[in-house]
C-alpha cells in the first residue's frame, strides 16, 4: 500500500497519553496552553521601557522642585509582552463567563452582553466627568431614570447614587443616621448599634467606623433574629440596627416588620443590608418593611460585573426621615433640564441644607449605572420579578438535591442561597476547606466557606437564576459524588486537592504570617543574603 507516504501515523499511539500525563516535565515548565507565567518584573527589564517618550522641551514645570530623581522601578514590557502576560494570567483565572460561580452572598450572576454593548456607546463611554452639564444631559437623565427605578423597586422616597460599593453604601446610610441623630440632638446619647451574629462583617465595621459601639443580637435557633432578645437590648442609647434581609443564612426574616417597629418605638433607625435584594426585587418593597436606609449592590442584583474586585456600585435608598441628609452630589431636574447639585450653597438653595456632605469625588460609577439600567429595561418589571423567583427556585433545587448527602443547617425552604454545614463530614477527617479544594479539581469555583459564622464549617451556595437545570444537575451530581467519596474514606485525596490546578494547596498560614509584598531584583536579593 502506498496510501500514506508522508509517514504520518494513522492510529494514535495507544495508551501513551494517559500514562505520560503526569510524568513528562517540559523544558519550559509549560503544559501546552497552561503557560508557567513569570512575574511582569521578570518578563520585562527594569532598565527598558515599552514606550518611547520624546525628550521634554523647555525647562519649565509646575512641580515646585519636588520632581522625582530616581527611577520608579516599573518593568519595561513592550505592548505584545504586556498583552500576553495578562492574557496568560487571565487564562488561569476562573470567571463567571467560564462556568457557575456559586459563591454565597456574592450573587455571581451572568453579566448580559447587552449591558456591555450599551455601556460602550460613545455618548456614555467617552463622556468626561468634568464635561459641562449642557453636554451631559443624557448621562444625567440616565442617572435620574435609574434613581427613579431604584426608588420604585424599593418603595423608598430618596436615593444617594454616589456610593461606590456595598460597604460604601453602608457608610452612607450610617452617616445619614448619625446626621439625623445629631439633628435631633441625640448623637451623644445614642451610641449603640445592634447587628445579628450572622451579619456581613462589613456591618459592624461600618458602625464602628461611624463611631458607634456594636452589639450582637443572638439568633433564635432557626437562623433568624431572636425578636425577644432584640427587644431586651433596645433602649434610649440605641442608634439603630443593621439587619440583612434575606439574611446570610439564606432565610427571610419573618419578623422584619415587628423588628422595624420595635426599633422605631425605641427611637432608633433601621439599616437594611441590601446585599441580598436579588432574592426579593420585584416581590417585596423594603420601604413596606420599615427600612430607613438600604444599599443596593448594582454589581449583584442588577448584573453589573464584579469579578476581580469591581468596580462595585452601592446606591443607597433613604426613608423620609433620612432623606434630608442625603450626600452630595445629586441630580436635580427643572423644566426638563438636568443639573448636578454639587455644593452646600446650591443644596441650600434647593432646600437640601441638611446634607451630610460630599461622599465621593464624582457622581458615582457611571459605567455601572448604564449597565444596571440596561439590565432593568431589558428585563422589565415582570422580568425582574421572575429573576428573583428563579434565583430562589434554583437555590431550593440545589438544597433539595444535596439534602441526601449533605447537611442543610436550617429547615428549608431557603431564599436565594442554600446553607450547609460540615456535620456530614463528621468523622471523615475531611474539612470544609478540603471539600472546597476538591471542587476546584472538578472544575468549579468553590462556594463561600466558613461564612456565616453562626454554623460550623459553613458552605454557602448561591446558584443564581443564570444557571440552567442541566448545569445545576451537573453541579449537584459533582458535589454529591464528592460527599460520597468523603464518607467512603477517601480522606487523603481530599487533603491532596487540588491536583489539577496550576498551583496545588497554598500555604495560607505562611502567606499570612510572612507575607512577601515587594518584588526585589535577583541581584539585590542575592546581595542581601
Amino acid at each position, binding site marked *: 500500500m502506498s496510501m500514506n507516504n508522508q509517514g504520518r501515523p494513522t492510529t494514535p499511539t495507544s495508551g501513551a497519553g494517559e500514562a505520560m500525563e503526569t510524568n513528562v516535565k517540559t523544558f519550559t515548565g509549560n503544559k501546552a496552553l497552561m503557560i508557567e507565567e513569570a512575574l511582569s518584573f521578570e518578563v520585562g527589564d527594569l532598565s527598558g521601557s515599552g514606550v518611547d517618550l520624546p525628550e521634554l522641551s523647555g525647562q519649565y514645570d509646575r512641580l515646585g522642585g519636588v520632581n522625582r530623581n530616581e527611577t520608579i522601578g516599573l518593568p519595561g514590557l513592550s505592548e505584545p509582552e504586556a498583552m500576553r502576560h495578562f492574557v496568560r494570567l487571565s487564562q488561569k483565572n476562573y470567571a463567571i463567563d467560564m462556568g457557575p460561580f456559586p459563591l454565597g452572598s456574592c450573587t455571581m450572576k451572568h453579566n448580559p452582553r447587552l449591558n456591555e454593548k450599551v455601556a460602550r456607546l460613545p455618548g456614555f463611554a467617552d463622556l468626561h466627568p468634568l464635561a459641562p452639564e449642557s453636554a451631559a444631559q443624557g448621562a444625567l437623565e440616565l442617572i435620574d431614570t435609574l434613581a427613579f427605578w431604584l426608588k420604585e423597586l424599593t418603595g423608598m422616597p430618596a436615593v444617594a447614587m454616589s456610593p461606590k460599593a456595598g460597604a460604601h453604601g453602608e457608610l452612607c446610610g450610617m452617616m445619614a443616621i448619625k446626621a439625623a441623630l445629631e439633628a435631633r440632638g441625640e448623637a451623644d446619647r445614642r451610641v449603640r448599634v445592634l447587628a445579628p451574629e450572622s451579619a456581613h462583617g462589613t456591618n459592624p465595621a461600618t458602625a464602628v467606623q461611624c463611631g458607634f459601639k456594636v452589639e450582637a443580637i443572638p439568633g433564635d435557633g432557626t437562623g433568624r433574629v431572636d425578636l425577644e432578645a432584640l427587644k431586651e437590648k433596645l433602649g434610649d442609647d440605641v442608634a439603630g440596627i443593621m439587619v440583612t434581609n434575606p439574611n446570610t443564612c439564606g432565610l427571610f426574616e419573618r419578623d422584619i416588620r415587628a423588628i422595624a417597629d420595635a426599633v422605631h418605638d425605641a427611637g432608633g433607625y433601621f439599616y437594611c443590608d441590601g446585599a441580598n435584594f436579588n432574592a426579593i426585587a420585584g416581590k417585596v418593597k423594603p420601604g413596606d418593611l420599615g427600612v430607613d436606609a438600604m444599599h443596593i449592590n448594582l454589581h449583584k442584583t442588577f448584573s453589573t460585573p464584579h469579578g476581580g474586585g469591581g468596580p462595585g456600585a452601592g446606591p443607597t435608598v433613604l426613608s423620609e426621615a433620612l432623606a434630608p441628609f442625603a450626600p452630595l452630589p445629586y441630580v436635580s431636574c427643572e423644566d426638563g433640564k438636568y443639573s448636578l447639585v454639587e455644593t452646600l450653597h446650591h443644596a441650600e438653595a434647593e432646600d437640601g441644607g441638611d446634607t451630610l456632605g460630599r461622599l465621593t469625588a464624582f457622581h458615582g460609577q457611571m459605567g455601572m449605572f448604564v449597565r444596571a439600567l440596561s439590565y432593568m429595561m431589558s428585563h422589565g418589571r415582570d422580568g425582574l420579578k421572575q429573576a428573583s423567583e428563579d434565583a430562589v427556585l434554583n437555590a431550593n433545587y440545589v438544597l433539595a438535591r444535596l439534602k441526601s448527602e449533605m447537611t442543610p443547617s436550617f429547615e428549608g425552604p431557603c431564599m436565594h442561597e442554600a446553607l450547609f454545614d460540615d456535620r456530614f463530614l463528621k468523622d471523615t477527617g475531611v474539612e470544609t476547606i478540603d471539600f472546597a479544594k476538591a471542587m476546584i479539581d472538578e472544575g468549579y469555583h468553590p462556594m463561600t466557606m*466558613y461564612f456565616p*459564622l453562626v454554623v460550623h464549617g459553613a458552605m454557602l451556595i448561591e446558584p443564581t437564576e443564570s444557571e440552567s437545570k442541566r448545569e445545576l444537575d451537573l453541579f449537584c451530581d459533582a458535589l454529591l459524588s464528592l460527599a460520597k467519596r468523603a464518607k467512603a474514606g477517601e480522606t487523603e485525596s481530599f487533603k491532596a486537592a487540588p491536583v489539577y490546578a496550576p498551583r496545588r494547596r497554598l500555604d*495560607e*498560614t505562611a502567606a*499570612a*504570617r510572612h507575607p512577601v509584598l515587594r518584588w526585589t531584583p535577583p541581584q539585590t536579593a542575592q546581595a542581601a543574603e
Partner: protein
Amino acid sequence: MSVKYSQDHEWVKADGDVCTIGISAHAAEQLGDVVFVELPDTGKTFAKGDDMAVVESVKAASDVYAPISGEIVEVNSAIVDEPAKVNEDPQGAAWFVKIKMSNASELDALMDEAAYKDFAGQS
C-alpha cells in the same frame, strides 16, 4: 488558684488580684493557624465583656473579650511577634494579658475546668 473559663473561651488564672488571661486550647484549635494578634496597651482599663484584643487566623478574625473588669498591667508581646505560639501553647506561654482585677467577685461567675469542658463540647 485553678484556671477558670468564660463563655467566650477566655481562660483566667488569678494570682492575688492580678489575673493572667488567654484563649482556651479549644478556641485555639477551632481558630486554626493564628496569624495575627493585637493586644491592648498597658494601663488601659476594661469592663467585663469589653473587646480587649484581636486574634486572627486563616479562617476568621475574632475579638477577645475581657472576662473580668480591671486594668492591664502587662501584655505578652511575644505572641504579637510570633502568633504561632498561640497554637503551640495557648494555655501556657501564649497568655495574652495580665489584668489587675477591680472586682474579684466576677471570678465566681466563670466556669471551672469541668464545666467548661462540658460547655465547649456542646458548642
